[in-house]
């Protein structure tokens, strides 16, 4: 067994162990913390799978922003009345466990019977890449070959946000979400809230810029910016914005709208929806990514904040 194989096996075992704890832990808070650690371990697994773009996304969104969301929810709900709800009967648990084992066994059997040699689109992706002017094949798939997926994804973010906003009380509509303010004037938190955002802006913009040629991109960069914004609000340095603000709504839709507009222009100039005119693929992709980054950062931050809770006092 080589060192790499031992490393892979240990990562896999540790990830499964922490995931098991996240499911079976007694306390709600312990489960949430385990889930966040699980996300970070998973990011390491993605690195081992040579999928660095996915690793960055998993660490930033799957673990980071999702973690902030779950911790916020856990803090507001609490675990105190956990005993009030009846646990399922032992028989129900056994049947559920058998079902889950059967599902796992079925999928494992499918994994073990995957065809060899494995089908792959990598050679085609690499072959067509020079036409886009990009150096990162994953960005090529996201913004050139399968740009329609990415366009719809950026729309999904806006729709999810509309869904969340619609859970607000009638009286709070158009107001601001509840502040994630930690509530204490903790000087370390204030310091971090002042120190980290400039660094986060540089890192975020860098991730977007290098995303064309190296791991990174609008989603990874946008998440870093969203995280900095959430941190500033937790530190109490800024209040959440009211959701009827004009600039806010502009920032939310500018990415998908520009993406859609460039896609439609493709009909006229390049002959197909989302086709880029020859020679202009890379500048257009960078323009779309820049606008998407702003929209993604604002959307992720607002998704984490939740429904408007109060009218803004002018």
């Amino acid at each position, binding site marked *: 067994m080589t060192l790499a194989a031992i490393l892979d096996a240990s990562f896999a075992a540790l990830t499964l162990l922490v995931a098991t704890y996240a499911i079976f832990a007694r306390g*709600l808070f312990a489960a949430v913390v385990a889930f966040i650690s699980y996300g970070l371990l998973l990011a390491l697994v993605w690195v081992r799978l040579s999928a660095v773009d996915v690793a960055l996304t998993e660490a930033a969104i799957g673990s980071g922003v999702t973690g902030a969301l779950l911790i916020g929810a856990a803090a507001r709900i609490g675990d105190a009345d956990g005993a009030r709800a009846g646990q399922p009967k032992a028989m129900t648990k056994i049947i559920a466990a058998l079902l889950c084992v059967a599902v796992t066994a079925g999928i494992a059997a499918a994994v073990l019977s995957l065809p060899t040699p494995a089908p792959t689109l990598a050679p085609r992706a690499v072959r067509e890449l020079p036409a886009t002017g990009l150096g990162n094949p994953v960005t090529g798939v996201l913004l050139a070959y399968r740009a329609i997926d990415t366009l719809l994804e950026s729309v999904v973010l806006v729709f999810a946000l509309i869904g969340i906003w619609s859970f607000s009380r009638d009286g709070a509509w158009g107001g601001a979400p509840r502040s994630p303010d930690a509530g204490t004037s903790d000087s370390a938190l204030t310091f971090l809230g002042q120190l980290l955002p400039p660094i986060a802006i540089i890192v975020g913009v860098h991730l977007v810029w290098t995303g064309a040629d190296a791991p990174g991109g609008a989603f990874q960069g946008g998440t870093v910016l969203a995280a900095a914004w959430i941190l500033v609000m937790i530190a109490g340095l800024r209040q959440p914005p009211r959701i009827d603000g004009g600039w806010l709504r502009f920032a939310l839709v500018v990415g998908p709208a520009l993406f859609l507009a460039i896609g439609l222009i493709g009909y006229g100039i390049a002959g197909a929806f989302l086709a880029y005119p020859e020679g202009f693929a890379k500048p257009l992709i960078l323009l779309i990514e820049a606008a998407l980054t702003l929209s993604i950062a604002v959307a992720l931050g607002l998704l984490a904040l939740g429904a408007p809770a109060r009218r803004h006092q002018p």
Partner: protein
Amino acid sequence: MSVGMLAGLGGAALIGLGLYGLLTHPHLLRKIIGFNVMGSGVFLLFGAIARRGAAAGLGADPVPQALVITGVVVAFSATALAVSLLLRVVRETGGPFFPDDDGAA
């Protein structure tokens, strides 16, 4: 065993594990965690397929990778929506459970 196979089998285990949490936990936030564990198991299956498709000098097929990046973002949107629904349930019924589970509401 190759790292691709390992990820595939790990993904299969995570799907079962997450499904169990989703089915058996009465607490709705625990259900959301289970659902997310299940989802990341599905993503790992994609990772296994991407890794097996390593070719043309790439460590992994970029197409499944791009699908997973899209998937992670959409999964976060769904989780945020689910948490908002949950907070609404708490506001309406006073507890993070389906009303049927405790007979109170």
